[in-house]
């Protein structure tokens, strides 16, 4: 007997994939694309770490080194981290979680993938045709006047991908507002949706400012309109303000979806309602809101007014409050829970630890006096990698494993998945913890030749990176294997409560037979709740 038709088997001609408007298929397209970008960005990171083993930097020239870390940053930030959870897992799960047949604007969703790819390929072309040596931040006046590289092309790629972000955010906002099934009130929404909603608000409100900024950079470089050129009365610092007005909230675009995933995982694998649901929900909104007013902490040493620095420092400390609420509430959720250590839970636990490290060192950097000391050192590099990689990438893998049975209809091999999760945790710490020490000792970022006394920490970091590289490659193999040989997953292998688990795995093209009705809170693991879930 053949399996019931689902979104994967519906129509397998190639064109049916490239012209699909099914949110699940668009999500799969995104999965494939961002995996590609992840490994390209990862390859650059590998070369960077190899180079830094030797203090004299014999592997590549300084110029190539600059282009490598620019490639790494640009690709990882805009073509992996920003789209990672929202555009893959979010695309797939949002309509399922709210019981809808699709997103509010399915064709716009597909268009956003095409924009993403157009932007990504443009940027990749710029990177491989000769590269860009500005760093991912494109600081003026270097980028507009002196840089010897394909700045305009790279910036154009990011500009185009920005529209993809905006359209995705718009789609999520409208979908979550308007397409919820009867009974699914805001306070019955799974926390993943609250985080994605907060993320979408940032995507919609911050990305256009980046678009305008990059447009001005491109025009300045191509036509010399002089807006950031001091020789023409322009102010390079204005660029930094505009850039960080986007790029600091963008940090929350990257981390909030991860927090949402972790909220789901902790609840399911502790079999408990999330402690302080409303606080966790609103803390996502608070992070998004406050996140718009902290950008100046990237500019403490730029010469901005000390009073501005004071305010930005204070606001940056404020962000710690909602973040801490989340961490404490996750741990409180686990308290007296019936905890199972499946691979997704291991990732979630890893997230809590690494995010806490990243968050606490963020407080060091929010502190004006200390930030002056470690600005542009490896301390900063280590801090944001703890958030971006230790936090976001870990959450992405956790979510990927958790929803893998729903997406593919197959179970992943648990043993290998746990091994990879543990390996990632240790590899990550070994790679990035030494960088805190390097930073405190005074090693500046973006240098590829350094005094020999730093070498031991760099070698340690590079050794960790090789473990991390293996650990990140592992899922590619065992998940690939499970795609064809994994055991069939039932509709709800985790006995989870979300609506997405009430349809078959993989879901049929239109997600649900009939419209589900919601009568309970999102994490109701009581026996009664379970019975209702099965009858719904």
């Amino acid at each position, binding site marked *: 007997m053949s399996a019931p038709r689902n979104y994967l088997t519906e129509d397998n001609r190639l064109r049916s994939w490239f012209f699909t408007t099914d949110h699940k298929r668009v999500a799969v397209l995104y999965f494939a694309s961002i995996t590609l970008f992840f490994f390209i960005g990862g390859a650059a990171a590998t070369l960077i770490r190899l180079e830094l083993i030797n203090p004299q930097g014999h592997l590549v020239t300084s110029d190539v080194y600059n282009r490598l870390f620019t490639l790494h940053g640009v690709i990882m930030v805009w073509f992996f981290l920003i789209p990672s959870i929202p555009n893959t897992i979010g695309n797939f799960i949002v309509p399922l979680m709210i019981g809808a047949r699709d997103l*509010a*604007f399915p064709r716009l969703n597909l268009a956003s993938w095409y924009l993403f790819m157009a932007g990504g390929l443009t940027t990749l072309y710029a990177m491989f045709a000769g590269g860009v040596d500005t760093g991912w931040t494109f600081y003026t006046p270097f980028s507009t006047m002196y840089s010897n590289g394909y700045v305009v092309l790279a910036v154009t790629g990011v500009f185009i991908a920005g529209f993809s972000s*905006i359209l995705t*955010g*718009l*789609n999520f*906002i*409208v979908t979550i*507002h*308007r*397409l919820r099934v009867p009974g699914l009130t805001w306070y019955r929404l799974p926390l993943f949706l609250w985080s994605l909603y907060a993320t979408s608000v940032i995507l*919609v*409100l*911050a*990305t*256009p*400012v980046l*678009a*305008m*900024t990059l*447009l*001005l950079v491109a*025009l300045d470089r191509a*036509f*010399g*309109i*002089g*807006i950031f050129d001091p020789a*023409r*009365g*322009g*102010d390079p610092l*204005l660029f930094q303000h*505009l850039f960080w*007005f986007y790029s600091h909230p963008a940090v929350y675009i990257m981390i909030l979806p991860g927090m949402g995933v972790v909220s789901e995982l902790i609840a399911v694998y502790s079999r408990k309602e999330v402690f302080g649901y409303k606080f966790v929900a609103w803390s996502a909104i608070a992070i998004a809101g406050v996140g718009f007013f902290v950008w100046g902490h990237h500019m403490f040493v730029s010469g901005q007014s000390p009073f501005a620095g004071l305010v930005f420092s204070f606001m940056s400390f404020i962000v710690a409050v909602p973040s801490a609420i989340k961490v404490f509430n996750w741990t409180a959720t686990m308290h007296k829970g019936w905890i199972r250590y499946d691979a997704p839970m291991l990732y979630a636990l890893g997230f809590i630890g690494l995010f806490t490290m990243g968050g606490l060192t963020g407080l060091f950097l929010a502190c004006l006096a200390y930030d002056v000391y470690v600005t542009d050192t490896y301390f900063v590099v280590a801090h944001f990698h703890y958030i971006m990689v230790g936090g976001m990438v870990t959450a992405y893998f956790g979510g990927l494993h958790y929803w893998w049975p729903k997406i593919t209809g197959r179970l992943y091999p648990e043993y290998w998945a746990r091994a990879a999760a543990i390996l990632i945790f240790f590899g990550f710490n070994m790679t990035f913890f030494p960088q805190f020490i390097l930073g405190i000792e005074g090693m500046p970022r973006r240098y590829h030749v350094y005094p020999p006394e730093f070498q031991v920490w760099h070698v340690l970091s590079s050794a960790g990176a090789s473990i991390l590289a293996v650990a990140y490659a592992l899922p590619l193999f065992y998940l690939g294997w499970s795609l064809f040989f994994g055991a069939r997953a039932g509709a709800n292998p985790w006995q989870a409560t979300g609506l997405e688990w009430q349809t078959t795995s993989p879901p049929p093209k239109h997600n649900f037979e009939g419209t589900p009705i919601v009568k309970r809170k999102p994490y109701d693991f009581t026996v009664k709740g379970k019975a209702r879930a099965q009858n719904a």
Partner: protein
Amino acid sequence: MRQQHDVAQLGMWVFLATEVLFFGGLILSYCVYRSAYPAAFAEAARHTKIIIGAANTAVLLTSSFLVAWAVAIVKLRQSRFAAVLLWGAGVLGVIFLVLKGIEYGMEYDEHLLPGLDFFYPGEQARAVGLFFSFYIVATGLHAIHVAVGIVVLGVIGARARQRAYSDAYHSPVTVAGLYWHFVDMVWIFLFALIYLPGRSG
């Protein structure tokens, strides 16, 4: 259908929020430099063609009125007249662009367009250049929005003529109307920022 209408409208409002921040970044930069070089910006603004600018403001406001009228009557089965109104608004949009083009031409002849041909005698040359950089970027981006709007109005007008819209289904008209009003609003801000400084007294 009611829900679909609702969804499309909310989508457009969210999109307009994006647009506000897009132009907002530019207008903020303008304000930074205007407060840094107030005299030069006033001097530069006196070189703009206020007659054309004012005429264009009237043209866009009128076209917005026509669109609002079309939105009001498209539900009343007056599709043919709605089509005329929408096309009328589109034609006004074209007139706007033609006037804008003439204005650019004049400014080009006066060497006022940075990036293309800029020469300004006097001490304030640098800041005047900055003003005209903003002028050309802001009005250029606005003109692109107008051009997109003209195409949309043309298509929607044609659909209205085919009686595609009714009381139950008219969200494309409403949504296009929202967009067109927004483009109009942006122009009102730009008009005040570009043409009016330095002209009082």
